[in-house]
Structures are given as structure tokens and as C-alpha cells.
């Protein structure tokens, strides 16, 4: 085990895969100086400018480079800098990358990883903060990952790069500097398995990405006051671990889904709907969701604070769900 920041872990993860497989390359803005956050630092000197491609500000073309590069037999890693900028390349992502294999009858494989550092950081306001994972989960052809710990970020990035399907890799932008223990060796995390953060019997909390650590604090507070919460960090949003969630809900009878994205039509809706369709009889309380209000992300600190799903919101929801 070594301790690393999320940033160091994903940098190492990419470097390991690039050493393993000469067809892996990365493309995005400012990669020659290590990327916006330093997650590519040092890579250009090891791999050169043909495999660490510092691109013009041309998001549609950046994503197309990934698509075309994949069709030509390589495994591109596409950097979007901030998830919001992918909106300038949605046609390429959704109409092309996600569909190519199917519409060409299986002739094409598109092993692309599209990296989306996502979510709110202080003062970044409406156009640099939104969480749109439910969009990608809605799109056939895409695998969607959203890890939250340093180890999972590394291990799932490595699995994503080896995956034959296109992967939307959502990175927890607000917690790049969080540290965690990284297993030694070729650490890959399997796609599709939730991480059991805490076992418990009273209520199931399902979350992912940056909300995992917030939820964890809330859960610990509730545990201290006697509520035995089970916390699942989904990590993989498509496919998501229905097995783990169903089993947990069957045990607890109570489900709370927590995400940073807008609640309306967020992924929480899909999870709640799937759970009630499948294990309706095991629920002793209506399931609940906590997400952002259906408003753009505001700038001013008190507005940001009111907008975010907070530890307090989560604690309160848990307490309400176990109240007699």
C-alpha cells in the first residue's frame, strides 16, 4: 500500500496503461504542461507529443480524435478538462461514439475513455459545475463510471482503458487532493461492482462520486446516534450494481439515494424506479432521493451552500426515514 492523492493515483494509472499498451494515448487541452490539474504531469516527457497530444480548444474535434483514433485501432483517452465542456461535443459522444459499434453491425469497436472532471468547486458557478451523469446513463452504448476514492479512481481508470466499450469516466474534481491507500501492483477495479463503505441494517444509502465522502460523514454521525446505516458507493453508474442495492434494500427496507446532480431526472430516479419495480414488497418506507434543486449552480457562497446536498441534509433524511 502507498498513500496517494486522487490526482497522483490517476496519473500513475494512465502511465501504467500507456506502458503496458503502445496503442494507448491521450488527447486534450494543455496536456503538455500536465493538464489543468496536473493529472498528466510528466507524461509528455515519457511518452512524447504523439501520445500525449496537447490540442487546440476544439472540444468537438478532441472527442472526434478519440472516435477516429479508436476506429483506426488505438485506445484513446480523451480529456475534457471540465465536464461542462463536453456539451460542445455531445453530438460526437452520443451520435457517433456511443452508436458506432451497433450501427455498423459490429464492425467497429470504440475503446475510448472520455474523462470528465465533474461537479461543484467553490465559486465556479453555472457553467463550470454541473453534473450530468444521468444523461450518459440514458445513452445506449456507453459505460459510465464515477469513482470517489484514490484507489477506485486509479483502478477503474485502468479497467476503463482496457474496456472494449466507450467509457464516460467521471472524476471527482472537488477532491483531487484527497488521499487514499493504493494497493500495490496492477490494481484494476472491476466495472459494475459497488463499494460497500459500511455495512448496516436500518437504512440503505446509495451514492457516488464527490457525495460519497459527504454521505460517509453523515452516516458516521447517524451511526453514533444509533442508526445502523448501510452505505454503498456505486462507483459504476452503468452498469450499476443492482445486486448489491437490491440485497441491501431487502435487508433494510429503506432506500435513500444521494447525488450532487439535479434531482429531477437524475440517476436517483432510475435507481428508485428500478428498486420499486423489483423489490417493492421489501420496502417498509417510500424510498427517497436527495439531489440539487432544479436550478443552475449559483456563485455566491451562501447560495452555493444552500444549493448543495449537505451532510446535514443527508443526516436529516436518514433520521426521518428511521423515525417511527
Amino acid at each position, binding site marked *: 500500500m502507498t498513500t496517494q492523492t486522487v490526482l497522483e493515483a490517476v496519473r500513475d494509472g494512465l502511465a501504467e496503461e500507456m506502458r503496458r499498451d*503502445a*496503442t494507448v*494515448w491521450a*488527447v486534450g487541452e494543455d496536456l503538455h504542461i500536465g493538464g489543468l490539474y496536473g493529472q498528466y504531469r510528466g507524461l509528455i516527457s515519457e511518452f512524447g507529443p*504523439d*501520445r500525449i*497530444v496537447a*490540442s*487546440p480548444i*476544439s472540444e*468537438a*474535434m478532441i*472527442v*472526434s*480524435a*478519440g*472516435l*477516429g*483514433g*479508436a*476506429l*483506426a*485501432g*488505438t485506445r*484513446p483517452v480523451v480529456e475534457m478538462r471540465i465536464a461542462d465542456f463536453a456539451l460542445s461535443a455531445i*453530438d*460526437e459522444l452520443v*451520435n*457517433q461514439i456511443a452508436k*458506432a*459499434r*451497433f*450501427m*455498423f*453491425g*459490429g*464492425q*467497429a469497436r470504440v475503446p475510448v475513455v472520455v474523462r470528465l472532471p465533474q461537479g461543484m468547486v467553490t465559486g465556479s458557478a453555472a457553467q463550470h459545475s454541473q453534473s450530468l451523469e444521468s444523461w450518459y446513463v440514458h445513452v*445506449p*452504448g*456507453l*459505460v459510465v463510471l464515477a469513482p470517489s476514492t484514490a484507489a477506485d479512481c486509479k483502478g477503474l481508470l485502468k479497467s476503463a482503458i482496457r*474496456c*472494449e*466499450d*466507450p467509457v464516460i469516466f467521471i472524476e471527482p474534481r472537488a477532491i483531487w487532493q484527497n488521499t487514499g491507500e493504493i494497493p500495490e501492483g496492477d490494481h484494476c477495479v472491476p*466495472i*459494475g461492482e459497488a463499494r460497500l463503505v459500511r455495512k448496516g441494517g436500518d437504512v440503505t444509502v446509495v451514492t457516488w462520486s464527490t457525495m460519497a465522502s459527504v454521505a460517509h460523514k453523515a452516516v458516521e454521525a447517524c451511526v453514533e446516534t444509533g442508526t445502523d446505516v448501510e452505505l454503498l458507493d456505486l462507483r459504476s453508474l*452503468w*452498469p450499476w450494481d443492482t445486486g448489491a442495492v437490491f440485497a441491501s434494500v431487502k435487508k433494510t427496507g429503506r432506500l435513500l439515494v444521494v447525488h450532487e446532480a439535479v434531482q429531477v431526472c437524475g440517476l436517483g430516479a432510475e435507481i428508485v424506479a428500478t428498486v420499486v419495480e423489483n423489490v417493492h414488497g421489501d420496502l417498509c418506507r417510500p424510498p427517497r432521493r436527495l439531489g440539487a434543486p432544479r436550478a443552475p449552480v449559483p456563485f455566491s457562497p451562501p447560495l452555493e451552500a444552500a444549493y448543495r446536498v449537505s451532510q446535514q441534509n443527508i443526516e436529516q433524511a436518514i433520521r426521518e426515514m428511521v423515525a417511527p
Partner: protein
Amino acid sequence: MTDIDNNNERKRALALHRTMLSIRRFEEAAEIAQRDGEIPGTLHLSIGQEAVAAGVCSALEPADLITSTHRGHGHSIAKGASLSAMMAELFGRVTGTCKGKGGSMHIADFSAGMLGANGVVGGGLGIAVGAAQGLRVRGSEAVTACFFGDGAVNRGPFLESLNWAATFRLPVLFVCEDNGYAAFTETARLTAGAGPAARAESLGIQSMVVDGNDVLAVADAAAAMVERLRREGGPAFIHAQTYRLRGHTIADQGAYRDAERHSRQELRDPILLMRQRLTDWNLSQDVQRLQVEVETEIAAALVAAREAVFPEPASIYAEVQDIGAPA
């Protein structure tokens, strides 16, 4: 003018003519099949534009790649896709290039280096440039050609992909197949400035304007450009001026077209022009032989398509993705 005493040149001219004939007869057959209800959906026919596909692809090797447009039958045939697999695709059969999942607008033959038609105007530009970047990573020397219409030059991806290819000196041959119209609009009305080649030049990309109805002119231009791409890296740009003799889709009667221009262009049908030339060169017999050969191939493709089975309904669940596949 080509020296027709030269045996190679004669062979080349006949091969180009044959490619154009294959495209023409393939599309004429498809047109009838669509009208008869055998082909579902609509078709975008390239009748009148065959010289561009035939000429450009004649400069390419099998290992070279192309991307295409919604009007992609000609490009596919010229790059070497199988006529019968293509026809079967149009018919929605499991023997089609895309197993019936794509249809005319997504026709593709990766085994021939044809990376797909595209339902998005301009969609192929970025794919071509990305493919060139991928080839570079793989250490391949292959070039990539990219067909797009005159309407695509007003879309953002045109700028982004040309600038990118020029910046990274990728060996991409951009081919603007200018048939005068974007759907129901005369493109010149909505395209500012001196035209597609001027735009490419402003990005530092060497460009040529060619008569897109003269297959030899297109082939010569493409050969020169591709040779330069292989030698020095790229990109390069060809503005091929041609004309669409049919409607935008099979349902379109072309009411918006200028009648006089249309009649003038009918006389400049690239196949007519080439046949005239081949006749002048005393090659009428060869032309007739080619016509029979092509006719036979198209007939066989039609029979094979009709006889092939439809895909199993359950195939909608296949080839979506390996992980998280639909159930």
C-alpha cells in the same frame, strides 16, 4: 490529356469508368427497389457525382481509410466495398455490411477501409482526422480521405478538423464534394466568401479546385495530393465541383432547382463525358463489356439481397456494448 496509347492509362481510364458505372447502376437499382417498397426508409443518391468518389479512391491503397457522408454509396463502392453486402444492407438483411442495423445512411465496410457513412452533416470530418492521428500512433503510413458536402463547410466541425489536421500535419485528404445544393437550398446563397478552398487556404492547407464531373481530372488531382501527403505529411484539400442529378432524397422532386442549370448539367453527366472520351479513343467495345459486367454484378447483388434473411429481432440486444449490455 491522357496519352491513350499507353496501356496503363487505358486500363486506368476503363477502371475509373467501371467504378462510376457500378455506382450508377447500384443506385439506379436501389432507387427502383426503394420505390417498390423493398428498401425501407429513404435514400440519398449520388447520381451525377460518381466521378468524385471514383477519382479520389483511385488514388488510395486498400490500407488507406475514408470517411463519408449521408450520400455514401459511391464512396463505399469506389473504396472497394462489396456490392452485394451493400445492397443487402439497404434491404435490411442480415447479410448486409452492417447486418441490417445501419441501412443506407450508416453503410460501412471496415474491411475495405471505409469507416462509415454518417447521418450527421460534417460528421465524417473529425473521424477522418482522428483516424489519421490513430494511424500515427500505430506508426502506419496510410493516408485518410474524407468526403463531405458543400453544406458541411458551414458547420463548426469543418473548422475544428481542418485546423487540427493542419496543426499536427496529419496526412488527410479533405474532399469537398460540391453538388451545388445542401438539401433544398442552393449552397452558394448561404456560404460566405470565396468558397471552400479559400477557407482551407486560410488555414494553411494547400488546395485545388477541380471539375468534379471529369473523372480523370479528379483522379489526377487526388493522385498528386495523395503522393504529396505520403511524402511530406498533410493535409491537403480538393474542392470538386459537381452536380446532383437526383433530388436530395428519393422523395425530393427538386422543385427549387434552376431548370436551365439542370439541363446544362444533364449534358455534363460524368459517365456520359467519360463514355464520349472512351469512344473517341476507340474503346466502345470495352465500355460495352464493362456495362454487361456491371449489370451482371448488380443483378446478382439484387438477387442475393432478396434471398437473404432478415436479422433476428433479438439482435437489437447484440453489439451495443459488452459491459452493461441491454437485456
